[in-house]
């Protein structure tokens, strides 16, 4: 097996340069076979006094083969999988037990399995460079740090210090890794790595413990103590409940990580490793992990690689962007653009308003400054990019203008007419809207082919998604430019076609209105709101609708009716409409109107008693399972309709859009991926059941039966 050969120098130090075929070194069958052979030779070679583990790639070691794992069949292969994972652990253990010291020479990213490989070494030296990232990010992919990551880091650091790295998947650059103790040494130049590693081995020639891990020495005590320490017990107890609150009991990997870390406190290394391996297998075969890996890894990469971006157009860069409207959305768009190094002209009706919009960025920068994330120079640099103005002429020369004014057709038309001329030749006009049709908005434009919808989410600086909406006449070139801009500001773009509510608003709307329908039917409003959280929504539909504002919903519906976009008598959730109308009539317009479903006093929200008095019927009962499924299936069905009607162009956009934009529970892997692991036939059957009980709107769109008949999944 090539890629695992070692060279011995005159001092007897062997350097294993891992250089597997392909762009990275990964933990797969080839690796195991190659390393097993190398370890055997090293063991049998009497002249070897130490081993340096190095990489022939830009990264040190990429760890587990995520692609290989996701391809694993779910059931029936548990034994095979377990043996495979344990073989890897045994291999690492054999390296760890070599009679001579092993030093990891970390020249690039050592993440996940990469860092786990260094943990079996006796000493870790890294090149002090920003490209050298260290950490165990498995938890963020729905997995756990197998390969001894949980067990060894817990034994090395103790529970309290290990948990943040294990549970949060925190990744740090080499300097920080040294500071916290993840590695032992750094060198300023990559050329110093091997000499320094060899030197360390020679320096420790007479140290009998240099080749022995601390946890393999008799009497080793884990830092911070074990379960006999009340502080450790307290930490376990409170960490458990915090994890329940965080995962709502829906994501198996983090509770499992904590459990295995605790087992590592109690048990010897080899036994704990077995438990860790079995835990990893349980995740690999679980539908939740499948969902999360499919969305967070494969589909996210697909989107970032530009599957939804039309081909044949050179990558465009925005040098100057105009943002019209310095309200909540406009100031956020200005912020993220400036952060990406783009010159921004922020225009509002008055200079004062525009300056207020710029001050928003200043506020965010001050916070970052306080945290030490940026320095004063960087702050000034970013602020210098934003020019507030009340004058359209300042927009001259913009490659892109994003209009982010109030959701009124006439107003948006007027602004388009006034400012469009300031764009450079071939410049793009973007409109930020969540409800108005792009095709209609584009009517005011001289060139609707260069007009596109850019639906940002609030707060813009924190929400990763931008929904790009193509009007009827939006050109492919314009779409490609819009796509490139979204990537330029480091956001994730999905691309949808023009339709009432596009994809995200329409889908979240279905969920909100289904929740409201149930309150209208007589269920306790808190039960409805909290059960949405129970299946993983960030907040319940009533809380969310209070934030959006009930009054806005009525205004939007009115506008859409007037525009002929929705018709009277087509309402499948009439009780929800009645509820909202009645509440608004009673002055309960939403949070910004002093209260809606909830009262808001001193920052605390309590349910409005009137809602219970007027709507709650204690004798009316729906099972918890049905309540949850109604609120989950409503957006899932809406997503499928968007796919079926061609509003969505890809399954990946559906999943990533629902996860990043409208809070789809992480365990679903997105509202369409959910069906794959739920089972297509089971989904159709459950839809039928819900349709029979609660209305035809729950019938599964025909696309599901079509996929089923074709023996396919939604990919």
């Amino acid at each position, binding site marked *: 097996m090539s890629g695992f050969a070692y060279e011995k120098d005159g001092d007897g130090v062997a350097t294993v340069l891992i250089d597997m075929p392909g762009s990275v070194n990964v933990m797969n069958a080839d690796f195991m076979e190659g390393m097993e052979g190398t370890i055997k030779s090293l063991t049998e070679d009497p002249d070897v006094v130490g081993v340096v583990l190095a990489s022939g790639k830009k990264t040190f070691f990429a760890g587990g083969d995520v692609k290989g794992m996701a391809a694993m069949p779910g059931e029936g292969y548990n034994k095979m999988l377990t043996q495979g994972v344990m073989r890897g652990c045994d291999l690492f253990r054999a390296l760890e037990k070599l009679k001579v010291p092993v030093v990891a020479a970390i020249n690039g990213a050592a993440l996940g399995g990469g860092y786990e490989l260094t943990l079996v070494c006796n000493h870790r030296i890294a090149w002090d460079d920003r490209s050298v990232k260290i950490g165990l990010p498995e938890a963020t992919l729905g997995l756990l740090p197998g390969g001894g990551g949980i067990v060894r880091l817990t034994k090395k650091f103790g529970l309290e210090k290990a948990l943040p790295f294990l549970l949060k998947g925190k990744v740090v650059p080499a300097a920080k890794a040294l500071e916290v103790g993840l590695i032992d040494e750094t060198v300023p130049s990559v050329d110093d790595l091997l000499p320094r590693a060899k030197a360390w081995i020679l320096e420790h020639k007479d140290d009998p413990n240099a080749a022995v891990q601390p946890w393999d020495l008799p009497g080793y005590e884990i830092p911070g103590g074990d379960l006999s320490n009340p502080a450790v017990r307290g930490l*376990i107890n409170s960490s*458990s*409940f915090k*994890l*329940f609150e965080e995962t709502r009991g829906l994501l198996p990997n983090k509770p499992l990580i*904590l459990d295995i870390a*605790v087992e590592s406190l109690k048990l010897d290394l080899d036994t704990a490793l077995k438990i860790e391996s079995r835990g990893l297998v349980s995740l690999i075969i679980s539908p939740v992990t499948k969902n999360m890996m499919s969305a967070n890894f494969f589909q996210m990469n697909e989107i970032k690689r530009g599957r939804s971006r039309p081909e044949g157009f050179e990558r465009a860069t925005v040098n100057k962007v105009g943002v019209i409207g310095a309200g909540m959305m406009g100031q956020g768009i200005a912020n993220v653009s400036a952060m990406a190094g783009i010159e921004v002209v922020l225009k509002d009706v008055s200079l004062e308003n525009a300056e207020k919009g710029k001050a928003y960025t200043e506020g965010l920068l001050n916070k970052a400054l306080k945290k030490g994330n940026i320095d004063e120079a960087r702050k000034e640099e970013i602020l210098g990019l934003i020019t507030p103005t009340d004058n359209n002429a300042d927009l001259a020369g913009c490659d892109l203008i994003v209009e982010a004014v109030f959701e009124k057709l006439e107003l948006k038309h007027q602004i388009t007419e006034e400012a469009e001329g300031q764009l450079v030749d071939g410049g793009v006009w973007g409109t930020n809207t969540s409800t108005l049709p792009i095709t209609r908005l584009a009517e005011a434009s001289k060139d609707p082919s260069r007009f596109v919808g850019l639906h940002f989410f609030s707060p813009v600086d924190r929400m990763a998604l931008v929904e790009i909406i193509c009007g009827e006449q939006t050109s492919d070139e314009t779409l490609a430019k819009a796509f490139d801009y979204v990537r330029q500001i480091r956001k994730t773009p999905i691309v949808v076609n023009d339709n009432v509510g596009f994809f995200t608003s329409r889908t979240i709307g279905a969920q909100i209105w289904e929740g409201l329908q149930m309150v209208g039917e007589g269920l306790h409003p*808190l039960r409805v709101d909290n059960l949405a959280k129970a299946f993983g929504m960030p907040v319940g539909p009533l809380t969310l609708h209070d934030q959006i504002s009930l009054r806005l919903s009525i205004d939007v519906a009115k506008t859409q009716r007037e525009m002929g976009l929705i018709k009277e008598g087509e309402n499948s959730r009439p009780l929800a409409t009645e509820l909202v109308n009645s509440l608004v009539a009673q002055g309960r317009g939403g949070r910004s109107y002093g209260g809606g479903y909830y009262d808001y006093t001193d920052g605390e929200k309590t349910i409005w008693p009137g809602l219970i008095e007027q709507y709650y019927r204690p004798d009316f009962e729906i099972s*918890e399972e049905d309540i949850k499924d109604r609120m989950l299936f409503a957006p899932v069905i809406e997503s499928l309709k968007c796919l079926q009607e061609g509003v969505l162009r890809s399954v990946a956009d559906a999943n990533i859009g629902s996860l990043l934009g409208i809070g789809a529970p992480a365990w679903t892997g997105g509202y369409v991926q959910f069906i794959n692991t739920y089972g297509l036939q089971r989904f159709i059957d459950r839809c039928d059941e819900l349709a029979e009980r609660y209305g035809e709107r729950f019938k599964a769109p025909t696309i599901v039966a079509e996929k089923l008949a074709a023996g396919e999944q939604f990919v």
Partner: protein
Amino acid sequence: MSSHAYIYDAVRTPRSKGKATGALHEVKPIALISGLLRELQSRHDLDTSRVDDVILGCVAPIKDQGTNIAKCATQYAGWDERVAGVQLNRFCASGLEAVNTASQKVVSGWEQLFVAGGVESMSRIPMGSDGGVVVFDPEYLIGQRATPQGIGADLIVTIEGWTREDVDAYAVESQRRAAHARDNGYFDKSVVPVKDHNGVTILEKDDFIRPDTTVEGLSKLRASFAYGTQNGMDATALSKYPQIEKINHVHHAGNSSGIVDGASAVLIGSEQVGHDLGLTPRGRVVAGVILGTEPTIMLTGPGPAAEKCLAVAGLKKEDIDLWEINEAFASVAMRYMKDLDIDHEVTNVNGGAIAMGHPLGATGAILVSTMLDELERRDLKRAMLSMCVGGGMGVATIIERV
């Protein structure tokens, strides 16, 4: 063959604060319980070789309470070597579980004479120091949503819509009743002073009671489980109660059972053995039951257990003269009275664990002595004893005078 389990006597130690400053901290748990065994022996001139088994509740059976303290105690007390001993753990109900188990054995006819009771030196072995699944097993804690009992106690208050004033008023009344009973000698028949090896008294009567407690005074105490809002415990418990907005945290040291040291022992046997040994029965155990309820709220078992016990005994609520519910928390007693629709006038007539403390493994058998004494004093017939139990269980026992 006997068909009844007779209570020949019931004794207990006084209870004292379960801290290093408590009067009983200097006494080993084995000495606490052995003092009661010797008292039973001397009161009745008991031929201890006739005792089949000593069944003792103990919730933290480690360190000074480890290695089967029941058998150790029989030896330590100088009882006949033929007496066996077993320690059991049904959490807070262990003492009553010991009484029920001994009674069942007597009724079965397999064995004739038992001591059932319990011991807990909470000052020496703090609650939870034995560790275990509900202390440090994340898989269980998360999977079962096993929040601490105080969260459940506050959840009961929230569901019932009670207030801090309601639970504090209950606590004040418990103090008043306990002080009145102690000061008027209602406990004297049962309470055996704890003495040192030289016969010098260490503690004669309950010293945990605070008769001057007022609602206003209690209102100054901080709610003990308010941290639940911060550390995920409330969210965990509420996931089972979606209709509840947030938990109203009202319990504190003053309206929850006190942490104390103490022990108890009840002599239970068949009619025949009583006849043989010249013992006069003071009462009998009519029935005893156990059941499980929703584990996260944990503390709602006593009401259903009492109902089940009535059904087993073939009795009605009207047949019960006095009710005794362990005051683990004020809300537990209040919920019990509400569930059974019984009056506070006939419930916990001499106060309870809020005033006198709850030495976990011992309390159940203490309730037997308290009720037996009171039935005799009032010349009444029957009492129901109930307790909430960790993990979501309820235990109940009916005793009657004969």
